[in-house]
């Protein structure tokens, strides 16, 4: 990966962040914080790592992406639109009556969305099902599941975490957007997850820890993860909730609140 490529991807990520701000602002509601913290991860997946074809959203050999933290739908919508799964103008319809872009992902309405979500804690289990299906079909596509750190409070995450290594699901990569905030406050205060990486290790996962805003590191980790055999991989991506907009960074108020007009202008300026 050349510096030039990385530079392009950084520009793409910034563009997706602007789209996130505009669309949530126009919708008047949504979750900016967790969309922005995942922007670089989603960019790396859709614009470098994943095998996919926007012209053929149902292509059987495509890599799958599950946004288990479904409230970050805006960042996925922005990426899908930028890839060409649907027109960019759709982004303005987020959460509006009759839209194909629901508040949380809806696989029956949005081209490129593989799984409906919004109720936390379920994506990794669905991802396991997809990984098993790939193995049964002898297909080489890869499954990526993006989880929130708060989401890992759900017991079901750990039921899935126990299963995947037992079945040696090396075609499954989990990525945790470790931004340290959930809805009510910090993960440290609400439900401390530490020692987090060691929890996954003790469940027999191959664990990588990265800076989730360094695109080169993200791509490198994802590519390495694909080469690991006989183990599923979890990438613990250290991120900043609200990344890229100064007043949203590490600010739990912007977990699930749209910016007002002045905040929107300021945010777009910072992301210009």
């Amino acid at each position, binding site marked *: 990966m050349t510096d030039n490529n990385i530079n392009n991807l950084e520009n793409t990520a910034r563009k997706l962040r602007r789209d996130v701000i505009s669309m949530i602002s126009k919708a008047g*509601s949504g979750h900016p914080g967790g969309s922005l913290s995942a922007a670089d991860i989603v960019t790396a997946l859709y614009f470098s790592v994943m095998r996919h074809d926007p012209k053929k959203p149902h292509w059987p050999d495509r890599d799958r992406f599950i946004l288990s933290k479904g409230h970050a739908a805006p960042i996925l919508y922005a990426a899908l639109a930028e890839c060409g799964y649907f027109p960019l103008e759709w982004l303005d319809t987020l959460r509006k009556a009759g839209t194909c872009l*629901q508040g949380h992902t809806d696989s029956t309405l949005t081209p490129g969305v593989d799984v409906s979500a919004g*109720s936390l804690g379920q994506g990794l289990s669905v991802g396991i099902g997809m990984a098993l299906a790939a193995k049964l079909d002898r297909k080489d596509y890869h499954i990526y599941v993006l989880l929130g750190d708060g989401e890992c409070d759900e*017991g079901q995450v750990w039921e899935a975490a126990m299963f995947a290594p037992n079945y040696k699901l090396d075609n499954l990569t989990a990525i945790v957007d470790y931004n340290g905030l*959930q*809805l*009510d406050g910090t993960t440290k205060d609400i*439900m401390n997850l530490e020692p987090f990486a060691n929890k996954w290790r003790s469940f027999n996962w191959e664990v990588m820890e990265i800076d989730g805003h360094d695109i080169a590191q993200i791509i490198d980790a994802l590519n390495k993860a694909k080469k690991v055999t006989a183990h599923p991989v979890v990438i613990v991506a250290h991120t900043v909730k609200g990344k890229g907009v100064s007043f949203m960074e590490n600010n739990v108020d912007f977990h699930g609140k749209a910016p007002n007009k002045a905040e929107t202008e300021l945010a777009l300026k910072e992301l210009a």
Partner: protein
Amino acid sequence: MSNPAMREAYGKALADYGAVNPAVVALDADTSSSTLSSYFASRFPTRFFNVGIAEPCMVDMSAGLALGGMLPFVNAFAALVALRALEQIRTCICYNRANVKIAASYAGVSDFKDGPTHHAITDIAIMRSLPEMTVIVPADAGEAAAFVKLIAEYDGPVYLRLNRSATQAVSQPDDNLQIGRGIVRRPGSDVTIIACGSMAGRSLQAADILAGRGVDACVLDMHTVKPLDNELILKMAGETGGVVTAEEHTVIGGLGSAVAELLAQEMPVPQACVGIKDTFACTGPDPETIMDAYGLGVRDIADAALKVMEKKIK
């Protein structure tokens, strides 16, 4: 007079009641700033437990707290607690007859902006089917607040279904609210509209439209869906000879079904059910728009009443 959001009225009432009764404890699953159990949490930090995003664990913890003599109020989004933690509710709360109060917030389509995963349109049906469970659907903020004390003083599992937002105010200071006793919000002799939750206010509006068409509709606020006020329903069905039910819920299994089960066995009269017609709703700009789009409009209630009137005449 301002009409607060139902969750706001509930949250404040819970905190106030916490001061009266030291056995009250509250739990939430990382949504206290949304359900507004945060009022209780800030006044009684040692009696509040935020379990993180772990609804099944929270429900079973509440059962344990109740079995240990405490009076737990479980707080979460209705769609997530009623479905994700259903088996825990059945086994550890209902089967133990544990004295737990489930405050199920953001119910119906009141979390309009977040879409179908966050809409609770099947919860009345589910909760109503559980042995030992009492199901209460307050019509407005006043009822939501008043029910906090009533359900706390009732011994047994209760599902209290709350809207995120404000609903049309219908309650009166002299309501004499009681679990299991419906309230006549408007007397009438031609047809009986039985409503719960946000649909009580809408039914009163529909009754006004019907009055303009020469139809005198009675409106019952059936805040307790289980146990149902059989006596009042049979009395009014008998007097008017036709019934419409209205609920912010699917037509399958909720208030309409409860009333139909009663009438079919005791007093068959024409009935129409206003509710969401076995479909997911969608994201919308506000709850009212979604309700109007999915058959819960004031007009839908009035039309249903007119249809029942026709069937009566035949």
